[in-house]
């Protein structure tokens, strides 16, 4: 009995390993484990076994059965893996065929630069606000310490609508508007369009964008201004960027400064990009003039502040190495696609 069973089992295992597909495998299952299968038939011999040997016999047949079942399972698994492999092999595609893109539109370089600047300052606790583009001369000039007749009124080549209303020549009037609201402390940036009567050429445009910054609080110092703009320059142009503060004059700040950053092309050694100077001018800034604070109803003996103004186009031109400002306003799709 024993040998017979061993022989059957061996035979079955041989047929399993020889089966070439799932159908063949199923035939083997029926032949050995089916109702009329060889192993089933051996089990039916149970009734001819002495009652005391029956447990051992049953155990023996079941072991054989398990052995064949396991082999069947393993073979089935192997065969279906092979079938999948075969199918997948037949489904090879040429991955180098062109992509089908969703054709997402492109941001404007100025907007991308602005988003960067906003991200940096929002992270430092600044609120982003806006002010009117058509503005009272009083906000554009008088409240910024540029009284009637001040030469700075001519320097900025302002477009006028009436004697009192003009196209703002700077975003600085937003400073006065925010300070007048009297909510302190102030940490804000105000991006927006400004206008000056410059003819259009590679470096000038009668309409461009500025970003104004203003901080007013107790104990604000010039070193805070320097630290803030250092941080800004590093975030915008990379961690190696150095700043250089040069004295300058703006009627609404005192002391005032212009800020250069180390050329991010050559690192400050001097190249064509920075015209050999190693430095690139990027913004104007200073401590809010006490007179401006007072005019806006903030006590200049208690509060101090700093302000800065950045030309957005200038940043975009520098950062993205655009050599002609006119490209920014033409909106040629081939230009925009590069951003």
């Amino acid at each position, binding site marked *: 009995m024993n040998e017979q069973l061993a022989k059957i089992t061996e035979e079955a295992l041989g047929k399993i390993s020889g089966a070439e597909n799932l159908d063949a495998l199923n035939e083997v299952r029926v032949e050995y484990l089916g109702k009329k299968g060889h192993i089933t038939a051996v089990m039916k011999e149970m009734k001819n076994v002495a009652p005391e040997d029956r447990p051992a016999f049953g155990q023996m047949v079941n072991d054989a059965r398990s052995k064949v079942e396991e082999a069947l399972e393993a073979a089935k698994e192997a065969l279906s893996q092979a079938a999948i492999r075969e199918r997948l092999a037949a489904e090879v595609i040429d991955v180098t065929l062109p992509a089908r893109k969703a054709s997402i539109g492109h941001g404007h370089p100025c907007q991308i630069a602005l988003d960067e600047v906003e991200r940096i300052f929002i992270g430092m606790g600044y609120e982003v606000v806006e002010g009117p583009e058509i503005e009272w001369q009083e906000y554009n000039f008088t409240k910024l310490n540029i009284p009637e007749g001040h030469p700075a009124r*001519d320097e900025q080549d302002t477009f006028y609508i009436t004697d009192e209303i003009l196209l703002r020549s700077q975003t600085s009037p937003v400073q006065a508007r925010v300070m007048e609201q009297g909510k302190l402390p102030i940490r804000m940036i105000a991006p927006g369009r400004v206008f000056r009567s410059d003819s259009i050429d590679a470096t000038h445009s009668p309409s461009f964008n500025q970003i104004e910054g203003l901080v007013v609080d107790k104990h604000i110092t010039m070193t805070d201004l320097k630290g803030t703009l250092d941080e800004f320059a590093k975030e915008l142009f990379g961690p190696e960027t150095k700043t250089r503060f040069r004295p300058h004059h703006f009627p609404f700040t005192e002391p005032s400064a212009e800020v250069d950053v180390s050329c991010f092309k050559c690192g400050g050694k001097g190249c064509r990009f920075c015209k050999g100077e190693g430095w690139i001018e990027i913004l104007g800034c200073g401590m809010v003039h006490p007179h401006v604070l007072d005019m806006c109803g903030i006590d200049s003996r208690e509060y101090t502040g700093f302000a800065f103004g950045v030309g957005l186009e200038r940043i975009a031109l520098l950062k993205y190495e655009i050599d002609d400002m006119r490209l920014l306003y033409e*909106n040629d799709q081939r230009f925009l696609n590069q951003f």
Partner: protein
Amino acid sequence: MNTPLSWIKDYVPGLSCTAQEYSDRMTLTGTKVEGYKKLDKNLEKLVVGEVLSVEKHPDADKLVVCQVNVGTETVQIVTGAPNIPVGSKGQYVPVVLDGGKVAGGHDGGPLPEEGVKIKAGKLRGVPSNGMMCSIEELGSDHNAYPLAPESGIYIFDEALIRELGLKPGDSAVKALGMDDVVVEYEITSNRVDCYGVIGIAREAAATFGESFRLPEVKETGNSEDINDYLKVQVEDTKLCPRYCARMVKNIRFAPSPEWMQKRLRNSGIRPINNLVDITNFVMEEYGQPMHAYDYDTIAGHEIVVKCAADGDEFETLDGQVRKLDHTMLMINDGEKAVGLAGIMGGENSKITDHVHTVVFEAANFDGVNIRLSAKKAGLRTDASSIFEKGLDPNNAEAAINRACQLVEELGCGEVVGGMIDVYPVKDEPVRVAFEPERINSLLGTDISPEEMKAIFRKLDLGFDEDTQEVVVPTFRRDLHCMADLAEEVLRFHGYDTIESTLPVGEATTGKLSYKLRIDQVARNIAEFAGFSHAMTYAFESPKVYDKLLIPEDSSLRKAIVIQNPLGEDFSIMRTQSLNAILTSLSLNYNRRNPDVRLYDLSNIYIPKSLPLTELPEEREQLTLGAYGEGMDFYVMKGVIEELFEHIGMQDKVHYEPSCDRPYLHPGRKADILYQGQTVGYLGEVHPEVCGNYDFKEGVRVYVAVLDMPAVIPFTGFDRHYEGIAKYPATTRDISMLVPKTVLVGQIEDLLAQRGGKILESYKLFDIYEGSQVQEGYKSVAYSLSFRAKDRTLTDEEVGAAMKKILQGLSGLGIELRS
């Protein structure tokens, strides 16, 4: 402002540094150097030569062969210059020796970066060892060297040879005054003192810690008294706080000496004659404009400073007649105006070659008035652009005395004794309290009071120990308060030496305004939909209304007009955003860019009244424009609805085709309505408008415009989860025969209204007009989906809803198709 470094060194004798070092350090203390130019750039092996003989060239008619003494030897040079004739000799000329360099070619074109090398060679077979130079070859021009011939070799004139004691072999660079560096400064408007060389020199001295010395001005004049010759009366002392006059008799014109010519020439001023050069020199040196009148043309020998009368006219010395009004200050004689104060003198009193006696004027005028008068007269001169910044009245006296001293020194005439000085209210120094703690707390520094005081001393600011006040001399018109002093301290303490800190104090929330958040979503959705961000101008031409077929009486034509535009094309503030996007699309189309999609997010400007008496409304417009593949009316519509969905506008959007949009295709346009309010429009651009923007016939251009202030009240970022349906939906398809006049939108309104709560959604799946459909009708098919949240719907419930819908549809003249 351009000033030769050699001139600065006259007042700061200890200054010794390279031009680069000078530029860097001056820039860091606030006198910004824009750049500098070495006048001897590319001038090498350049000496004074003496022409010993000139002979004909054996083989060339236009060439001559010269023997030239260059000090160490005599060289043979062949030249074609017209001003070295055969047989002439004795001329002193600049000669570049073999192996040397000059700056440019003889035609005076742009100078090559590396200069021009000169080598010995043969000209038509005759050896030539070097070159005699024209002024252009030396990098300059006839304007700077009036004695240079229009064409030909520069020949040193006798007076100069005598003055400098020139001999062959001397440096020609030095003889020509080209051993100098011209520095270009950007002077800020607050530093009027730095519009003069003296002011810059004072800054240089403070920057380099060198001593500064003012030019020594000696007393001048003969024993006569100017008051016996001239009377001066100032009627408006507010507009003319000071008027100084001095006189010079027996004028003797001559060229000014080389040292003065060099200063002027290297400052970019053409030397003319001693008298003119002196006034220009003093203007440069002191930053005080001066004027000279011909005494013999001054009627009554009297000067009256007063305003013109409205309607007066005046001929300035450039020959132009200027219209005057009562605000414009004039210099008059006993009978008539002789000068437009501070701006330009008159034709009637100008200095001619025959002048015998001259009146010098050094006055002080109100800056604002000069600025406005110059604007009115349309005449901004060098003098007016300085005066308008508001000068120090005490500088006028120093300047006029300096001029008289130079007259005597140069032998230009005989200075009459005394000065007429109308100066009723003397300008006194400003006093500013010295508060070192406040200065330190503004700067965030810890600078000692002693260091601060030392800085003030360097700048010639006074200090009153008794009152602890800084006494600001009148030449520093920019220092009024603590913050001003803080800047002076920081400039010389060093902007670059202070720490970097970050503000401490109450924390603030960094955020975008609500409107900017909506803008951000709008930009994102537009970009996801394939539109790229365009930036356009806010001003445009009034002609755009005709291009857009906007009728004459349309309120859109009521635009804000710029008083002083760059030109008609930029003269009005836009009242619609279509022109800008169409202009950009047209540019793309004409550059053959296929399939372009652009959006613009910026303002239009709607006046509340014209002319403006209050600020206009600035309404932000989201403008989408596109042409090319994959674009049609419904794609545009889809972008709008996607956007609405993402900014919290979940209600059904309505479209009104009977809107008044003359720039759109009459059959393919609609206003966009949300909750009954017009928030924008969209459509295909009218073919005639497309033509006006240079699109070829047949090109379809689509636009959509959202008026953001109208949209924003409907927006929100609140979202509420409504659950996912648990019970199955029941769908019913209906196929309808719809009269052509009925819009699909009407059907949908009806479905929504009649379907009740259980109508979950409806979807158009077929629309057809054509041969299989009855004339005057279209075939429309919808799939309706019914569902309840809490149960499976019964056939009866759905049937009842369908019945109501079908009844409604038949009311619109719609029949069901079998």
